[in-house]
């Protein structure tokens, strides 16, 4: 069964080539000393220099980071609460509606989410800017966080929390001292997912941003519509590099902390 086959090797090679060659080309040609992106004219880092001198890009990057950081943090708190309610909350009025509202944004086209939130902000007369983007991103990101966290909570041994309650903890203390440390890897990956989704989002931000705030994807979008530009290649390379480092670091730390959490749980089980 596990023998090496030419078919599998070819499928994997072609598949990964298809996934990675476009990005490799993008990165290589960001070091191209030519305004025409597709014609190689020698190595240069001038597009990186130009990028870091471009105020508009720097401003947009700053707005994007602020939005991503605040929305992913609020979304992680709300999403963890929602996950806890879904898994351990028992029955309450409107539970079906609640779970529907958690899952629906995951499959909702971005154009509809964006348009509906914009119409809400206008209806209540909220000035559009960084705050409205944060509200919009928090809303869809919390649903992703709650899915990630609830998948961990389902496998979580509730008797540990009950033991803490028996030993005199308040429910909040039990959550903080027992549950939270054990589900922490899922909470962290939920936060990372929310952060990346916010960094990435073009459509919802375009609807909810208004004239005063521009995020990085919006800036990329408006300059890409005019054609390819080596500056965008340079920016893409930086973003790809950051994501690669982030994903590798996250996978190493989560592997470690999952192992630690499992060990703690087993030890608690044994001593019980």
């Amino acid at each position, binding site marked *: *069964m*596990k023998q090496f*086959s030419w*078919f*599998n*090797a070819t*499928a*994997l090679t072609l*598949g990964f080539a298809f*996934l*990675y060659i*476009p*990005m490799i*080309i*993008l990165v290589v040609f960001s070091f191209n000393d030519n305004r*025409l*992106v*597709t014609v190689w004219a020698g190595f240069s880092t001038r597009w990186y220099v130009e990028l870091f001198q471009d105020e508009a890009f720097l401003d947009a990057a700053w707005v994007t980071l602020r939005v991503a950081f605040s929305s992913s943090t609020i979304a992680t708190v*709300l*999403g963890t*609460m*929602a996950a806890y*309610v879904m898994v351990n*909350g028992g029955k*309450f009025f*409107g539970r079906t509606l*609640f779970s529907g*509202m*958690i899952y*629906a944004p995951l*499959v909702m*086209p*971005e*154009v*509809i989410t964006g*348009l509906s*939130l914009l*119409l*809400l902000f*206008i*209806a209540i007369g909220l000035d559009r800017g960084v705050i409205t983007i944060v*509200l919009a991103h*928090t*809303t869809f990101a919390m649903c992703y966080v709650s899915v990630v966290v609830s998948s961990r909570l389902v496998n979580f041994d509730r008797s540990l929390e009950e033991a803490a309650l028996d030993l005199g903890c308040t429910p*909040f203390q039990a959550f903080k001292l027992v549950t939270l440390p054990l589900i922490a890897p899922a909470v962290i990956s939920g936060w990372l997912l929310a952060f990346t989704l916010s960094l*990435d989002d073009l*459509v919802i931000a*375009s609807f909810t941003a208004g004239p005063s705030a521009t995020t990085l994807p919006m800036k*990329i*979008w408006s300059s*890409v519509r005019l*054609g*390819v530009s080596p500056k965008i290649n340079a920016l*893409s390379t930086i973003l*790809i590099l950051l*994501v*690669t480092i982030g*994903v*590798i670091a996250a*996978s190493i730390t989560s592997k470690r902390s999952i192992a630690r959490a499992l060990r703690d749980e087993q030890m608690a089980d044994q001593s019980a």
Partner: protein
Amino acid sequence: MNFARRTLIGIPYIWLLLLFLVPFGIIFKISLSDYAVSIPPYTPTLDLAQGWAGLRDFLSQLDFENYIWLSEDDLYWKAYLSSVKIACISTLLTLLVGFPVAYGMAKSAPEWRPMLMMLIILPFWTSFLIRVYAWIGILSNEGFLNQFLLWTGVISDPLQIMNTSTAVYIGIVYTYLPFMILPIYATLERLDGSLLEAAIDLGCSRTKAFWLVTVPLSRAGVIAGCFLVFIPALGEIVIPSLLGGSGTLMIGKVLWEEFFSNRDWPVASAVAIILLLLLVVPIMLFQRNQEKAQEAEG
């Protein structure tokens, strides 16, 4: 019910009600109102401040004018139909590309699998916009693909791929490939190898065993992957705008232009409502498939 529990349930509940459910009501309401040259550019038809009189007014004036307008203008029909067509074809293409990769991953040595998984997930974390942008440089007339094909002598004139539906298909397959590979890989990896061995012992050829055992058993993953590609592809806007030309009609793009260029909010809202209705069926089917898969597991 104590206070702490009420707060715990209440905060996320109210957040979602206010920022998810209420906006839908507003979209629906505006889709029934009339276009006006003002800020905001529509005349409100339901005035809640007037109480019952306002509601009676609203009901007597209730018209589906925007929907009638949508059904009469064949631009919208064509856009809906071509979105469905593009989403269907690209889902199929993604399956054709994704299945062999998932199969190859499931058959690879176990110590390689985490590494391969990471390589599939990495593009998913990379900006969507950047991954679509990468293809502009490849597919354009002076792009790398044409340069390469001219150099090898396969073609003598550059191919026009950019700004056609072909470019849109390539873009969708490329960006959504991880969504297809991961669920299929998940079912194939769990597949019991002894079933295949049994089929081969009983006289099946390897190919026949693949079609009679592997394919039916990976069905749940294939269906999940297809929905995960089809549903977002239907409302896609970035890919047709950047890679497709004026000939590629997709409903997401029409909505975007209706809103940002024509500033006709009531029509944009009506387009959104119909897009949503179009999505309800596949979303419900997807939900049922997931529930069935979960039951089969547990």
